[in-house]
């Protein structure tokens, strides 16, 4: 038995590993290489050193996009996690026996539903929901006499509209994730606390939240990485690819525009390199800052 174990495991791993190396690691390596070139995307190229990065530093749109990514990075995980925790707690209401609110099993399915839709479909649907005239769903529901809200066409609110969709799409998954986490908390702890007279709020903050910390940490990293992306929504929903007036511009959109539209694949790769390090730094920082010992102490 033990004899055949390694070939067996390797047999399973070798294909996915090869795919991963070629299509993920390989692509990243190539991006690092291309970021040092003037490749247009159509033919040969020459190496130009760090010129792309200097250009990036002087590019005002890059800084706007970065600011929007940071905004998403801060707001989106907080809102999503807060909502997901709230819903998950309602569904479970601490401990299996206590049970959640009435019909919680149905809600669980409903919450998860957005996950089943492809992001592009979500974007198209919400593009119609946020339609800037009466044909838009929200504006259509408003009384006829009201001036339609512009939503995505209003630069003050466009990014918030996209944020709302990002949160809507993500919450369900984390509700299920947190529900599972809550389910694994030992029943006795809740019982003991309840006997001591703890309210549900106390149960949540003193027991559920601390014991869920690992799951939260993972959620935070995932959501942060999602916040660095947001490409599909911006590409499909926003006015003029990141507009109006760059108010929904994000780094991933800039990469796309430069690589595939402006014929500046080299420059786009430089943007990609920056995004790579930002994401990596973020993940490392999150894992470090939210280390468990803060709770364990």
């Amino acid at each position, binding site marked *: 038995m033990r004899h055949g174990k390694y070939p067996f495991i390797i047999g399973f791993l070798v294909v996915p590993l090869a795919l991963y190396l070629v299509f993920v690691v390989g692509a990243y390596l190539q991006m690092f290489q291309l970021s040092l070139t*003037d490749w*247009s*995307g*159509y*033919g*040969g190229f020459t190496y*130009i050193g760090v*010129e792309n990065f200097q*250009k990036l530093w002087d590019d005002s749109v890059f800084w706007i996009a970065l600011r929007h990514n940071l905004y998403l990075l801060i707001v989106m995980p907080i809102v999503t996690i807060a909502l997901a925790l709230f819903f998950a707690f309602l569904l479970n209401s601490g401990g299996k026996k206590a049970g959640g609110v009435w019909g919680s099993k149905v809600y669980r399915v409903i919450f998860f539903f957005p996950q089943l839709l492809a992001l592009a479909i979500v974007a198209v649907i919400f593009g119609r929901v*946020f*339609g*800037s*005239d009466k*044909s*838009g769903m929200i504006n259509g529901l408003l009384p006829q006499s009201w001036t*339609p809200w*512009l*939503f*995505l*066409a209003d630069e003050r609110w466009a990014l918030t509209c996209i944020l709302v969709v990002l949160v809507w799409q993500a919450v369900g998954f984390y509700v299920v994730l947190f529900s599972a986490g809550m389910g694994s908390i030992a029943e006795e702890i809740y019982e003991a606390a309840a006997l001591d007279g703890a309210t549900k709020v106390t149960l949540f903050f003193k027991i559920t939240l601390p014991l869920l910390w690992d799951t939260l940490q993972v959620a935070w990293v995932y959501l942060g990485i999602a916040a660095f992306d947001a490409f599909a929504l911006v590409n499909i929903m926003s*006015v*003029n*690819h990141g*507009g*109006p*007036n*760059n108010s929904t511009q994000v780094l991933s959109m800039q990469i796309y*525009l430069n690589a*595939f*539209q*402006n*014929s*500046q694949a*080299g*420059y786009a790769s430089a943007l990609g390199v920056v995004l790579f390090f930002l994401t990596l730094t973020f993940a490392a920082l999150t894992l470090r800052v939210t280390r468990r010992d803060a709770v364990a102490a």
Partner: protein
Amino acid sequence: MSEITKSELDRRTLLRRAAAVGLVAAPGVSFLSACAGSDDNGDDTKQATGTKSADNPLGIDPKAGIEIVIFDGGLGTKYATDVDTPLYNSKWPDSKVTYSATQQVATTIKPRLNSGTAPDMINNSGSDIMDFGAIVKAGQAADLSDLFAAPSLDIAGKTVAETLVPGAVQQGTYDGKPFAVNYSFTVFGLWYNKKLFAKNNWTIPTTWADFTALLDKIKAAGITPFGYAGANASYYMVRAIMTSAAKIGTEQVLKDIDNLKPGAWTNDAVKQAAAAWGEIGKKYINPSFLGLKHTEVQLQQNQDKVAFYPCGSWLENEQAASTPAGFEYAMMTYPSVTASDKLPAAAINAAAGEIYFAAAKSKNPQGGKEYLRTMLSKKAALEFTKLTKSLTVVAGAADGVTISPGLTSANDALGKAGQDVFMGYLFDTWYKKLDDASREAANQLMFKGGDAQKFCDTMEAASQAVAKDSSITKFTRS
């Protein structure tokens, strides 16, 4: 139709001017001319060739198949499947035509260009268009000199180039060599419902004062006087502003802009045009249009909710399915902005567009060119015009044919413009970044209060940024 014949001469004059537009790619030029058609990757794919003869001027291999890719957009694809391919096959029955249509040209074609498995003939168009300057620079487009020098398929005694409206070849010429066939011929103007205007006794204005007076009347009638879709069609508005600027200060204004000349965007003509249009945006546009896509606003026009829509002559065909019986497209030229405009009110912007090219590194580029030669035959051009309600660059191909009302009015406008037809600008295809900036600036101008100075300054800054960026290949025209 006789109008076509009538304006034929005028179109010629127009394109004679456009003929001067030999595009000169400054850097990368020697490299470009050296490797068009050759393969600098070293992994030469074997390309199909045959023996040249009078019947086979491009020397294609009659047995080799060709692969074509057509953009499925405003013009549809019927002209390729129902006209061009059968016509090609009637001459070359043994050559199998592999056809596909796409709305995502860059997404589907670019990887194939880079991997050396390009289709033989490509229609580069749509919102996912490939940067053609970059394609030429990378040696991916085949030199079409032999195509244009070859005899026409069905017009006796003429080469392909001689059958086209003058300037058509030059418009696809980079550094003295032709790389693209700009097949359709587009007239730009303001489109309206002729029946609606007739019903209300609204007359077509030629001065800006008459124009705004009419817009006031339309507004009083409860119709949004003017509109365009900000979400994805703001370049229609850029075209309107640029046309007005050219009318105020002649086409030289646009040439300066294309040549990235410092101060080109802060020129008085541009400023006046932007101010005039900014005022229209402030008073007569529906703010929700900023969030809408072109088909949504066009549909509203078909429902008589919007009076004027700035667009090219493809509009009528694009909307064919949604146009109700009470709607008849007509086009008017942009009114004079000032009393001292250098071009008359009848002056018009019309240009060859819609790029078709043979890929240099495909299996059968000569076959791709032969397909283009088929498209440039009189018969194919005539059918194209019938099917798409768009004129082609094949001179006189639509003679004696009844064409749609919208195209008729566009053709009339061309006739009235006489000598004063200009090709317009090329910065949008040369410098995608500047194109983006202009779209955004036009939206800002039209929907955010009409600040003409801001429009000029933003564009001037964007233009100079492109000028300074050494990684962008520069082109010039005169």
